[in-house]
């Protein structure tokens, strides 16, 4: 039971961080399908720092890893920014390209690093058993992870920034009607860059949270198993509002956690449902949920449309 709660919170943290990233980007008008790729690259950055900092002070590990993941994610998101804001590329295509590129690039980089250390090691795995412990604080049997706090704070800050600050309101204006925003002097390009870079930071941190959730090494060939897209589903279900995103993340996180811990519940194990069904459940649930809630879905009006100063 405790394990289920733990896993739910951790997966919900990942989903909320990444979904918030998507939220910022889409509120500014740029569809960010490359979140999966940003997660992978952020995870790469975080994993590399975890590996490099083995044995350092826990506080150092926590701060540096988060910063590394955020930085890697932010730098990778500039690919989306450049293509969609300056070159008016099709944002869906660029996002998909970034996903494929990230997995390939991460695998190449990790393999190269592994091979440089030890010519026989041709795997795409990074291990960080000891460093990972820096993130965990035990309350009795419950392993509280600093990332959970981070995700919660991110939700709170996102709400405040988007709805209570000038910056946030202007950001949202650029996604609803950029021409109107431009007419009052807001620099749409700058705002959209801000949205994309923030999504890069959040996506990158989400990535490192995902790969450290419950496991001590990660094989980069597998990417992040569609979690970036689950986060997008959370964002759409949450109607681009931070509070709803948090709740939706808990729901989806619960189902994802179930696939890890179902064997611990004797009544569930007795049902003899194959493991694949549990793996499928988050995706099936999200499809069903989206089918019922997308009818009145209110996406930011101008998202996906490259901003053209000359048009009305």
């Amino acid at each position, binding site marked *: 039971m405790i394990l289920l709660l733990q896993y739910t919170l951790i997966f919900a943290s990942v989903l909320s961080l990444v979904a918030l990233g998507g939220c910022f980007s889409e509120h500014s008008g740029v569809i960010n399908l490359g979140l999966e790729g940003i997660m992978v690259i952020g995870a790469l950055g975080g994993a590399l720092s975890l590996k490099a900092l083995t044995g350092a002070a826990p506080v150092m590990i926590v701060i540096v890893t988060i910063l590394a993941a955020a930085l890697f994610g932010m730098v990778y998101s500039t690919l989306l920014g450049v293509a969609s804001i300056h070159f008016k590329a099709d944002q869906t295509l660029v996002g998909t390209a970034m996903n494929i590129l990230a997995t390939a690039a991460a695998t190449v980089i990790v393999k190269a690093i592994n091979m440089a250390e030890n010519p026989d090691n041709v795997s795409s795995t990074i291990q960080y058993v000891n460093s990972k412990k820096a993130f965990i604080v035990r309350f009795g049997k419950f392993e509280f992870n600093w990332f959970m706090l981070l995700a919660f704070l991110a939700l709170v800050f996102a709400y405040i920034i988007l709805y209570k600050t000038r910056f946030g309101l202007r950001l949202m204006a650029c996604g609803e009607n950029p021409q109107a925003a431009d007419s009052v002097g807001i620099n749409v390009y700058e705002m959209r860059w801000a949205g994309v870079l923030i999504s890069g930071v959040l996506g990158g941190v989400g990535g490192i949270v995902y790969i450290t959730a419950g496991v001590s090494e990660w094989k980069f060939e597998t990417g992040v198993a569609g979690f970036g*897209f689950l986060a997008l589903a959370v964002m759409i279900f949450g109607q681009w509002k931070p509070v709803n995103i948090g709740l939706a993340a808990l729901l989806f996180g619960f189902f994802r956690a179930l696939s890890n811990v179902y064997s611990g519940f004797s009544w569930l194990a007795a049902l003899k449902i*194959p493991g694949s069904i549990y793996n499928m459940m988050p995706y099936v649930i999200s499809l069903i949920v989206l089918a019922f809630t*997308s009818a009145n879905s209110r996406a930011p009006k101008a998202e996906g449309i490259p901003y053209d100063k000359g048009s009305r």
Partner: protein
Amino acid sequence: MNKEKESIFKNAGVQSIIAAIFCIIVGLFIGFLVLLAINPAGAGSSIVTIVKNFLNYPTKPAQLKYLGNTLVKTAPLLMCALSINFCYKVGLFNIGAAGQYVVGAGACLYAALAWKLPWIVCLLLAVAAGALWGTIVGFLKAYANVNEVISGIMLNWIGLYLVNMLLANVKEQASPYTLQLSSTNSSAILPTAGLDKLFSNNKYVTIAIPIAILIAILLQVILTMTKFGYELRATGFNKDAAKYAGMNEKRNIILTLVIGGALAGMGAALLYLTGYEQWATTQSSVPAMGFNGIAATFLGGLNPIGTIFSSYFIQHITSGGSYLDKSIYPSQISELISAIIIYLCGFVLFFKYVMNRRIAAGQEKKIRAAKAAEKGGEDK
């Protein structure tokens, strides 16, 4: 007034080809830089190895045989690319093609290995399975307004787990791979119609390739010369205008995704029914074929005929990657290059814009020079 000769560069087709070649060159160059970063010594020869692919073999029969292997994998890639191409013309991004491919593979392999059906039935079952998967995406999009990218991705993963579960029933004892078609049910293998002799008796070369090419041509005909194709393209340009003109856009969306799914499912059959590969029932990620189809379709300028060539090219460098010295360079380099090429294809619109602007500027210059010369003559 002299009619200015239309610059050949203004032709949309030519622009697409130039843009595609540019993307390829830049993609290969960046791949070369990555190889340099990993190990400078072998970088130059490695990038050449990737580009040469089957030409790496010394004798002609060997070259032909491996060219055959590349072609075997080009057929399913082409089908996936056509699926995405067709749907994109209607304004839909069928990223679910990967999942439709997966269920197609599951259907045809199960039918072949468990029910021992002949190849034509297996093929049709794969088409039906893919079409079904596409229908779900279509329905959700048309009636529930669910973004087809998200539903496509969800269905990709659902399909993967379902197929893994299903095919676990027909797999080998000691390995996670499905049974060999040749030993279990050879009637399910696609006929070669003599094509294998052209490629040094490569028994995997079948009618799959001509079928795929014929379908590409058929799609081009449908899109440009039939009323249905016209309606689809109109819906893609402006959904509301098409609806205003009386076209049933819900039906068109669903039909398009059904066809897209059918194409991807057929692509799976065209690969797995040759016996070239077995399905790994423990695979944890959706096969790359569906996603490489995206690269192929955009590189081909979103034109079915161009897609034939771009699919071949993408498969060529993907296969070329497997010849790299694995102890130095990971074979994922080819994936990296493909991904960079897709990314650059997003800039194609920008390239065309730049090309058009330069041509227009050049033409303006000529007109101004001619006018100045005229005026100058008159004044004097």
